[in-house]
């Protein structure tokens, strides 16, 4: 089979695998493995980031099915995630183990003892698979409930209703005694490993990409581009929209299950409007309708959250953002009008932004110099102020990124294009939209 005939995510996974094999061969140190051992290539800290990135990718790619490909606006993805997380956690903590033990006992007595012991060794993956499926089905049912009003509502109103469902779900969980109410659900078994997240993220990208390029996916894009024309062409828009909601919600449920079984804890506050907004941000940032764009930006934002934990990281991120903004602004101005004066003007705001960032970062030094000249100025130490408000700083930069991208590059990083390694090797991007990739 030629590599190019394989679906893109498989090719991508294969290449990542090859990369790690090569890295490992190059290291050549005994006891070095990918995840465990004395000197693992991916130490627990990086593994944590990778798992979070995988969960974020599943969320963003699945939301892209509703917001990007079907053109509806859902602001309640965290609600579906919560349903998946809680239902699957409840299953694997309260029901699954008991049920499984009884099943094993029945099998050992009535069928064969060997089969019983064999099943027992695979207890964890079997239970986790069922838990994920249960969570996904429950989230899918929730998606069906939310999809129904989408038949009547459009645009802003739909966004509000999905937001409302998110709030309602969180509110119900906060009052559900069996799962710890507002203080959170503790003692969820730790089933999630990197392999699970990786495999499911690949499966999510692969299945949604295939769905988007199927006949149904074409109908979804028709609904996005013009709902009335789509309906006039004989497309059952109701069915298309509900399918998009249900399928997307199911994957959000999977992501919720993975997260709950990873941190072994679920708190209703983790699934509020803010989490939904985070998912929307990664979809919009990657480009509405671009699956690879969503995946890249979800992974990138996860890494960014780690980077933004300290002030130097925030500094480098801000400088990079200013550079990117200056470039986008330059491109925009260039396409609108010519003339060296307006070209220069495109860099005025980024220039001052850069100076402001540097002034904040080197605030102690700048203050020391200034106070030598004007001794009674008593300037505030901006850097110390930034360091004392880490959590807030992270969201401030996050929101600035969102605003800057919307103002200067509303189509997102990739627009509706898809991106692949094979195309990169050939030195160009493939096509415009999903169709281009199919040719």
């Amino acid at each position, binding site marked *: 089979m030629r590599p190019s005939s394989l679906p893109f995510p498989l090719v991508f996974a294969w290449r990542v695998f090859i990369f790690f094999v090569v890295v490992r061969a190059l290291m050549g140190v005994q006891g070095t493995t990918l995840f465990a051992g004395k000197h693992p290539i991916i130490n627990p800290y990086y593994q944590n980031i990778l798992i979070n990135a995988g969960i974020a990718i599943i969320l963003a790619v699945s939301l892209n099915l509703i917001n990007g490909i079907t053109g509806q*606006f859902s602001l309640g993805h965290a609600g579906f995630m919560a349903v998946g997380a809680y239902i699957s956690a409840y299953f694997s903590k309260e029901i699954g183990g008991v049920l499984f033990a009884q099943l094993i006992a029945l099998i050992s007595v009535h069928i064969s003892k060997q089969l019983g012991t064999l099943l027992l060794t695979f207890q964890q993956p079997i239970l986790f698979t069922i838990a994920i499926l249960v969570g996904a089905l429950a989230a899918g049912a929730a998606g069906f409930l939310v999809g129904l*009003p989408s038949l*009547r*509502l459009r*645009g*802003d*109103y739909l*966004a*509000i*209703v999905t*937001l*409302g*469902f998110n*709030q*309602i779900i*969180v*509110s*119900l969980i*906060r*009052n559900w005694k069996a799962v710890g109410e507002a203080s959170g659900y503790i003692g969820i078994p730790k089933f999630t490993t990197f392999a699970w997240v990786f495999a499911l993220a690949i499966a999510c990208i692969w299945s949604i990409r295939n769905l988007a390029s199927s006949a149904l996916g074409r109908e979804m894009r028709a609904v996005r581009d013009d709902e*009335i024309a789509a309906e006039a062409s004989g497309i059952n828009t109701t069915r298309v929209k509900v399918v998009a909601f249900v399928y997307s919600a199911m994957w959000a449920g999977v992501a919720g299950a993975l997260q709950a079984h990873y941190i072994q804890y679920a708190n209703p506050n983790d699934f509020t*409007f803010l989490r939904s*907004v985070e998912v*929307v*941000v990664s979809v*919009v940032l990657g480009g*509405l309708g671009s699956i690879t764009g969503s995946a890249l930006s979800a992974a990138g934002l996860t890494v960014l959250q780690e980077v933004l934990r300290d002030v130097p990281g925030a500094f480098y991120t801000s400088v990079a953002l200013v550079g990117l903004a200056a470039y986008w602004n330059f491109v925009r101005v260039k396409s609108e009008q010519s003339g060296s004066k307006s070209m220069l003007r495109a860099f005025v705001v980024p220039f001052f932004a850069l100076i402001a960032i540097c002034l904040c970062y080197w605030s102690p030094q700048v203050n020391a110099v200034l106070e030598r000249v004007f001794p009674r100025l008593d300037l505030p130490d901006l850097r110390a*102020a*930034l360091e004392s*408000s880490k*959590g*807030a*700083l*992270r*969201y*401030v930069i*996050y*929101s*600035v990124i*969102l*605003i800057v991208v*919307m*103002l200067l590059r*509303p189509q997102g990083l990739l627009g509706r294009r898809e991106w692949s390694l094979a195309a990169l090797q050939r030195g160009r991007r493939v096509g415009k939209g999903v169709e281009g990739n199919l040719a």
Partner: protein
Amino acid sequence: MEFLQQVANALTQGAIYALIALGYTLVYGVLRLINFAHGDVYMLGAFFGLFISRWTGALTLSQNNKSVPLWMTAVVFVGAMIGSALVGMVIERFAYRPLRTAPRLTALITAIGVSLLLEYGGQMAFSPDPQPFAALIAERNIIDTPSFSLSLVQLFIVGAALLLMLSLNFLIQKTKIGRAMRAVSIDRAAAQLMGIPTDRIIAFTFALGSGLAAAAGVLNSIYQPSIDPLMGVQVGLRAFVAAVLGGIGNIYGAVLGGLLMAFAETATVAVGLSRYRDAVAFAILILVLLVRPAGILGRNVAEKV
């Protein structure tokens, strides 16, 4: 009497919701944009009020249990409203005006970004901890029976809100700029062709809505004297639901929705379901939208092909 007490409390809360909902509805009327940052402008209004009362000395007076003179209360109100109006105009100028011609979704996402920026920027600037607010109105009950009590604060809130709403109604229905606002909300392009400076009208609408939000912020802070940078999230969301409930874009709908919202909330608490407050609010919204997709007073406009 228990019932009457609940009605009085609901009316107070409803007046505050209605003032915020008016801002959502005004902006939606002229721009077709859900201004997600509106709840945070309300928060800023409360903080402006705090700064001004600190500056005029009203805060120290109320902390020493002395009554605050009326002129200080007036200065706090006017100052907070002007400050928030300016913030609203700045937000409109830099975050929404460049996107006038872009798809509406883009502006909605920018609005979410501005909202997050104000919330977490507020945490950085004012510290995330709750801060006490000045008692600008004397804490004294006008009617004080064992079963029913009405405080001066409640009366002041309802009175001030009523005054603001009536002046808003006058402004929109009887003045030249109000007529221009109505024209922009009906058809922006046509209004521009008739010589209406639409950009200026939209900026004015933002200032108006933000000023009302600031008034609501100060009123609410007098009622519940503790403010923090995230105080606008829940209240803003509820007021927004109220605006949609009444029919977004319709100012009478916003008032009706605000009152309905407050009454529903009070009823939820009264029957002992206070922990389901949010769920009930949104359930009502979803039910109303399913029956009347444009809200109670909103007109359902058929889509033209």
